[in-house]
């Protein structure tokens, strides 16, 4: 049963009307298309001004469409960006995130 005051259960993409689910997936594809390329810039240089927000947003949104592994990676990336921001670890996490979410980006 969901906690009425704090954390609730994780949303999995089931039980919603098909059109709502399709809409969520469409929106997530758009979000990946806009945010993932900005995060990929971490492979070539220091974090940009939106990197932390992009990682945070993808971490939350991925759960909505059932991409929980990608959510964990995005949250780890967010934590790294908010902390030590070790370049090697950033690169590893970005590559992992690209592997997990790359299929959402239109060819």
């Amino acid at each position, binding site marked *: *049963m*969901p*906690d*009425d*005051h*704090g*954390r*609730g*259960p*994780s*949303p*999995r*993409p*089931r*039980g*919603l*009307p098909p059109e*709502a689910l399709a*809409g*969520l997936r469409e*929106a*997530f594809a*758009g*979000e990946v298309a806009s945010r993932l390329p900005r995060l990929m810039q971490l492979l070539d240089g220091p974090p940009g001004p939106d990197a932390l*927000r992009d990682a*945070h*947003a993808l*971490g*939350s*949104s*991925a*759960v*909505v*469409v059932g991409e*929980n*592994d990608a*959510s*964990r990676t995005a*949250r780890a990336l967010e934590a790294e960006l908010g902390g030590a921001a070790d370049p090697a670890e950033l690169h590893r996490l970005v590559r992992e995130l690209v592997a997990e979410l790359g299929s959402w980006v239109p060819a």
Partner: protein
Amino acid sequence: MSPDRPSPVAVVVVDDSPVQRRFLRAAVEAEGDFAVVGEARNGREAVALVERLRPAAVLMDLDLPVMSGIEAIERIMSLHATPILVYSAFVAGANSENALEALAAGAVDVLAKPGPDDTGTLDEYAAVLRRKLRVAARVRVITHPRGRLRSQGLTGTAPSLGSATPRRPLAPAVQPCPEGRDAVRLVAVGASTGGPQALLTLLGQLPVDLDQAVLVVQHMAEGFIPGLASWLDGLVPMPVVVGESGRRLVPGTITIAPSGGNLLVQDDRLRVLCTPPEPGQFHVPGIDASFESVARALGPAAVGVLLTGMGRDGAAGLLALRGRGALTLGQDEATSAVYGMPAAAQALGAVEHQLPLDQIAPALLTALGRVHQ
């Protein structure tokens, strides 16, 4: 909304993520009792939308570009006070202080976005959102001065919101406790919806060298109480700790009842015992349970204060305190975010003095024989 022709409750959703906005819209509109009338992508848009659309409630993320969620809440609550339900990933676990900051800024409640390790279904989560929105939309919120003052550069973190309002003459007929009456040793405070902000106002006015121990029972979910204690500890003069079984309440220290059960005062040495909630107990930690234990242990050597909150928890406990000769104070309707618990206590005859929020601490200090300004 006319009861004869019910129409959907107007809601504005605020999130920079299109996925979250779409999910929120689908979730809150699923049963037809809410309609999303506007979507904002940042705090500034949210303030403008609320001003233009005047929704019945706002569902808002905290991590927003352009203007943060906290600043947007402050501005909305200072300009067009509207019930705000915070929906954010930044309010759980180590970030729980953000939840308290949002509540202090005027948000009615907070709900954590789910994480990758949570379990459940989207439908369940949508149901929680709607249930919380139904409650939030009924809350009669009051204007908060902090956003306005901050925008004018007049205040920073506002350690006491009560101090931001013009001080009125001390109205209550509260007198120093008469000689011969047991010396007051404990001030017990109960609060629920709107409580963190009210606690900040009340506790911010109590001096660091208070001779009495202070016990606070705030309805709050598991995991948020340490954040509440830490947050208050940084803003009020007295030290703030979370209560533990077997320890004593200490004069000059504010003890917050932990979540997950009830904190009972066992004896006049102020030792406390944390117990599981009673079967069927809805509000945790329970104010009635704590107040009744204080009444048994201390009687007239205690003061009971019941602040804003939905429901009636605390009313019977305050009555027990009054019945044992303790001074009892209740927050008035005009300054309560939700005039539920104090109203229930007032109806029971449990409230000796009903006061505006910013006059409770001065009245308390008068009763304790302290000089106040």
